[in-house]
């Protein structure tokens, strides 16, 4: 990502955190998941179902948005920065486990990489849950070939994983609301260096010495 040179920064230097493709995937998946959750609530909750009605239309929106979910997730793979973020989310280090177990994990004493262990866990659980919902949803939708007990089983899996995903999303949104800087970074792509040093020390260290978008110096170089 290149940008026009900014005027000499008197403000706090910003670090590039999320590239444009990453932000787009996050936004699109977020929107689709929200539509799925709202329509699921209408399909599932009796009072809402009777209030809103139009069962067939609501079902159509739910199914289409559900099947659309993997599109941005897979399309993002053409972007190198997206793949790099996925790699980081995938890998959990012994330090991550230590961070998860620690009661004082937020004090910054255990240096955290670009993603903390909680974010990695959320990423893995979300991706897995989306995969499970897609699989069970496909079986539920395939009235033609799936045997009936499988469709009942798929409904069972779909219902309970949807409930789990609901809780996951509530947690995710709660953490996001608690950190406006992190939330802003998913719109603008950048974070103030001081925030990075506090929340993601090891990652900030990778960028040390270069407030620009591309880290030119390796980790551990003098500030």
């Amino acid at each position, binding site marked *: 990502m290149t940008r026009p040179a900014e005027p000499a920064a008197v403000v706090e230097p910003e670090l590039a955190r999320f590239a444009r493709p990453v932000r787009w995937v996050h936004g699109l998946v977020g929107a689709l998941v929200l539509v799925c959750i709202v329509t699921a609530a209408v399909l599932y909750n009796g009072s809402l179902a009777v209030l809103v009605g*139009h*069962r067939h239309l609501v079902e159509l929106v739910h199914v289409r948005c559900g099947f659309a979910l993997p599109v941005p997730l897979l399309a993002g793979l053409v972007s190198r920065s997206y793949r790099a973020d996925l790699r980081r989310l995938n890998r959990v280090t012994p330090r991550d486990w230590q961070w998860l177990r620690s009661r004082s994990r937020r004090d910054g004493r255990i240096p955290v990489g670009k993603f903390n262990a909680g974010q990695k866990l959320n990423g893995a*659980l979300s991706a897995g849950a989306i995969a499970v919902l897609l699989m069970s949803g496909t*079986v539920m939708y395939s009235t033609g070939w799936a045997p009936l007990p499988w469709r009942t089983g798929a409904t069972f899996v779909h219902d309970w994983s949807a409930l789990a995903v609901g809780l996951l999303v509530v947690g995710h949104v709660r953490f996001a609301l608690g950190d406006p800087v992190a939330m802003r970074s998913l719109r603008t792509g950048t974070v103030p260096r001081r925030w990075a040093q506090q929340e993601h020390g090891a990652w900030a260290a990778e960028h040390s010495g270069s407030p620009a978008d591309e880290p030119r110096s390796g980790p551990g170089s003098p500030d």
Partner: protein
Amino acid sequence: MTADRQDRPEGAPVGRRVVLGLLGLGALGIVGGSTLQKGLSAVLEPIETRDPTGLVSLLPAGGTFRFYSVTGAVAQPDAGDYRLTMSGLVQRSGTYTLADLQAMPQTDLVRDFQCVTGWRVPHVPWSGVRLGHLLDLAGPTRAADAVRLTSFDGTYTESLTLEQARRADVLVALRMSGGPVSHDHGGPVRLHVAPMYGYKSLKWLSGIELTQGVRPGYWEGSGYSVDGWVGSSNGRDDDPTG
């Protein structure tokens, strides 16, 4: 990005393991979930029916009603405003109020309620006027061989052959589970076709029309069986409820 390459070998690929693990669990659940679901319903159903907070009903456990409505918000008529019309190929067309229906001989039934999507509510007490009784009052003409049922939601329709409609377990239901049929359940007056899947039991009943030939109803347009017998239609093998 040098940092990424350095980051890569560090740590175990936990993310991938979690995703694959969940997928495996999901597949197991699809194959074995129907048994699990039955067990869970058996445990949760008695709790749910006695739960004053209603929180248990938020769990996807089955064993209770789910509410389907095929159109926008459905008007809630006052009990005094409700009308049921008899029309079509009859000798005596007419209109009944709720009080008229309540004054007719009432039939009680206790049956499992089976939805074609899989959920089943055990032992639901129903009470109302036999559809056959209303047909006798109207007197179908010789040409009539089917009944078309319409809903005051403006969209939902259903159909029965005249023979099916005269069965003793087909009710114009006024009460269920010991109280009036609530709005969400399709009240004040709904159909209850005991031996058939739930979609045949039209909600918010407002019209009974005698026709020549069965005119398939709303759900049949989406591929559901016209003769929706529980256990022998729609490709399902549930225990019959008739």
